[in-house]
C-alpha cells in the first residue's frame, strides 16, 4: 500500500517538471527561431512585451489570455518586422522604428485590442450561454413533470420495483 503511494508520489513529482520543461522548450524554440534574425529584430521584438507579460501572468490552463493578446500583439509587430527586414535588418532601421511613438502605439495598441477582446467577449459569451442553459433547464423541468405525471412520484425514488408496486396496492 505504502509502496503504491510512494510510486504515485514519484509520478506526481515527475509530472510537475514536465510542465516547466514545456515552457523551457517553448522559450528555447522561440529563442532558436529568433536567432537567425539578429539583434535589430530582437530590438523590434520589444514590441511583443505585452505578450511576454501575458506569458508570465496568464495562469489559465488553456492559455487563452496569452493567445488572445499574443495573436493581436504579433499582428501589430509584424508590419514593423517586415519593414525592418526590407531595410536590411540594421540597427539604424531598428532604432528608427523603436524611436517612433507611432510604432509603439501600433504594436501596443494591437495588444490592447487583444486585451479588450479578452475583457468584453467572455461576459457576452457567458450571457448567451446561460440564456441558452436556462431555456434548457425549463425544458428539462417540463420533462421531469411529464415523467412524474406519467409514472407518479415513484419515478424519482430509488425504491425497488416490487416495493413500488406493493405501495400502490398492485
Amino acid at each position, binding site marked *: 500500500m505504502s509502496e503504491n503511494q510512494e510510486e504515485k508520489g514519484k509520478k506526481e513529482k515527475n509530472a510537475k517538471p514536465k510542465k516547466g520543461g514545456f515552457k523551457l522548450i517553448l522559450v528555447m524554440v522561440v529563442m532558436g527561431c529568433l536567432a537567425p534574425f539578429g539583434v535589430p529584430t530582437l530590438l523590434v521584438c520589444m514590441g511583443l512585451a505585452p505578450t511576454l507579460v501575458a506569458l508570465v501572468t496568464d495562469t489559465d490552463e488553456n492559455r487563452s489570455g496569452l493567445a*488572445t493578446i499574443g495573436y493581436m500583439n*504579433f499582428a501589430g509587430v509584424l508590419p514593423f518586422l517586415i519593414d525592418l527586414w526590407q531595410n536590411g535588418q540594421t540597427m539604424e532601421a531598428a532604432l528608427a522604428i523603436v524611436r517612433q511613438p507611432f510604432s509603439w502605439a501600433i504594436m501596443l495598441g494591437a495588444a490592447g485590442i487583444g486585451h479588450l477582446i479578452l475583457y468584453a467577449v*467572455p461576459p457576452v*459569451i457567458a450571457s448567451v*450561454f446561460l440564456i441558452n442553459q436556462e431555456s434548457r433547464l425549463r425544458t428539462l423541468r417540463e420533462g421531469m413533470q411529464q415523467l412524474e*405525471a406519467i409514472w407518479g412520484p415513484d*419515478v424519482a425514488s430509488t425504491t425497488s420495483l416490487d416495493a413500488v408496486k406493493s405501495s*400502490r396496492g398492485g
Partner: protein
Amino acid sequence: MAEENKTQQENWGSGLPLEGRFFLYPDKALPAFNAAGGVAYAARYKNDATQAFIGIISSGGVLPRIENVHAMRMIDSPSILRLCEGGVIHWPAQNANCYALVYEQPSAERHWKSFNETHPVMSEDTVNNAFIIPMIKALLEFQRTGLVHGAIRPTNIFWREGSMTPPQIGDGLSAPCGIGQPSLFETIERALCQPIARGEGNHVDDCYAFGMTLAFVILGSHPFQGMDDQAILRLKLDKGSFSATLGNRRLPPAHIELLRGLLSDDPRQRWTAEDLEQWMTGRRSTPKNSDAGRRASRHFSIAGKEYWQLRPLAAGMAENVAEAVKVIENGSLEKWITRSLGDDERAKGVAEVVDEINEKGKTASYQDQLVARVCIALDPVSPIRYRGLSVMPRGIATVLAEAMMTGQNLQVLSEILTSRFVTLWVNMQKDVKTDLVPLAQQLERMASYAEKTSFGSGLERVLYEMNTGAPCLSPLFKGDFVLSPKQILNSLERVAASGSRPSEPMDRHLAAFLVAREKRSESLFTAMGLGAPSLKRGLALLSLFGEMQNRYGPDKLPHLCAWLMPLVEPCLRRFLSKPLQDKVRRQAKEAVDQGSLSLLLKRVDDTARVVGDENDFLAARSMYRNIQKEMATIERNINNKNQVAREMGRPISASIASLLALILIAVTLWKTVWQGLMG
C-alpha cells in the same frame, strides 16, 4: 282430450312449473300427505291434468335426500309411492327456491294416522297376502336399487284394509334418514342417537323398521302402548327388541319367526329382503335369538345407577362423564369387565384405548375424549358419544348439514372428526370391519379437510364431500337453491343485480362447494383466502369464474363483472404508467359492459403488457435521473457565471483574436507583397 285437459287446468288455476313437466299449486295444500321434510300440495302433469299428484316442498329446516332421487325414480313398484320428479321450484310462501318432490297421489289414506290407534286384528292369511308379501316386494326393490328408505312405519304406509290395492310406502326422501322416524322403528344403536345424527342406515335397518311396522299391523295396536321413547329403548336394551316388542303375546308361528328375524338386534343375524323372499316362498328357518347382551354376575354403579350389561353402561357413562373418568382411571371398570362380565377381550380393548389416550397426554378435552373412546370400546356398534352428541359415523354428514344450516356451533363435530373417533369406531367393529373400511378412509380424508383452514377446506368441504346432494349453503345464495356448479354464475348474476350484495362473490361455502363438486384444485382457492394478497384474490376469482362462464355460460354477466371490478382494481394498479392504467381501465370497463369475464381477465392480466410497463418504468426512472444530473450541472453554471465566462468566453476570445490577427497578418503580407511587385 286436449280440450278436456285445458278445461281441467283452467279449473285448477295457475300452478308453478317444475322441471317443465309438472305444475304445483301453492293454494291447494294437502295436509293428509305432509311428510317429515315438508308440506304437501296438489300437483298435476303439465299435459294431463286428470291424474293426481302430490308435491312435497322441503321446508328448509333439513336437507332432502337429493342424492337418492335418481335411484328412487328408477323404482316402479306398486308397493312404493312412485316418485315422478324432483327439482327446484320458486315457492312464493317462502319467497325462495325450494326443493320439491312430486309423487303419484296414493289412492288410499294413511293406514295409521297415529300410533295410538287400534285396528281390528287381521287373519294370518290376510296379513300375509295383503300386507307382508307386497311389502317384501318393496324391500326387494329397495335392496335391488341399493336405496335405504329410512321411513318405513305404519303412519307412512297408504293402505285401505280389504282393498285390492297393495299398501304403498310413502315418502322417505324429503328429510334425512332418521328425521321423522320415531326411535321405536330404529334399531337400538340408531335409537341411541339424536334423530338428525342417525345418518343413512343400511338395508337391514329398513328391515328392522318393517319388522316393527309388521308388529303394529299384526297386533292391531301399539306394542309399547303408553311408554315413552326412553322407556321403550331401556326395555329393548334390557330384553332385546323382539322380546320387548312381543313379550308373551300369542302369534302364529310363521309371524313369530318372521318378527324374530326382522327384529334381531344383531345386524348380521337380521333378515334381509332375500331372507324374506325365501320365507315368502315357503322356506322356514328359525333365526337365532340374539337378544339382550351378556349380563354380569354383579352390577356396576355409575352415578348411583346399577348396570348389568355393557351397552346400557356405555350409555350411562356417556351421560356422566366425570364419574366415568374416575372408574376408568382407578381401574374398577376394567376389573368389573374381567371379573363380573368375564369378557377379557373387551377389558383388553378398554385398556388399550386408555393407554393410547394417556400416551398422547392430557388435553383440554381429555375427560370427554377418554369417555368417548372407552364407550366405543365397550359398545362398538353404538354411536360415537362425545360431549352430548351421539352420532353414527354416517350421521356426521347430516348433523353437519343441519348445524351449518341453522348456524349451530360446529366445535363438537370438528373435534369428533379431528380426534379420529370414526377410525377407532371402525377398528372396534368385528365381523363387518372390512365393509366399513371405505367409511373409515372417507372420514380420515374428512378429518384432514377439517384440520385445514384455507378456502376450499375446513368443515364446509366436509359438508359437501359427505352430502353429495347438498345445495351450496353460501349466504350468497340465500333464497336460492344451488345444486350444481352450472347454476352458480346465474345465481351470482342475480345477487349482483339485486344491489344488496356483499363485497366479494366468494366465501368459504362457495369455495368448498366448487372444490367438492367440480373436483377443482385446492391451490386455486388458497389464493382467495382473506390473508392472500388482494391482487391474487382478484385474479383467482376472475380466472375461476371466467373459466366457468366459458364452460357453462351464460355469455353475458355484466352485473357479476361489475361486482368483480373493484376486486381486480389491484391488477390495474399494477400498471405503473398512468396513461396505460387508464387505457386498461377503459378496456376493462368495455369488457364489463360486454359481460365477458374471460375478456375482463385478458384485459387486466396481460403479462406482456405488465412486463413492458415495468421495463418502461425502469427506463423512465433512468431518464429522470439523467435529467436531474443535467439540471444540477446547469444550475451550477448559472450560479457560477464568472467561471462559465472564463471557461467558455476566454477560448472564444482567443479564437476571435486569432481570426482578427490572421486577417491583419494577411493584409500586412499582401500589402508587402503588393508593394514588392509594384516596385
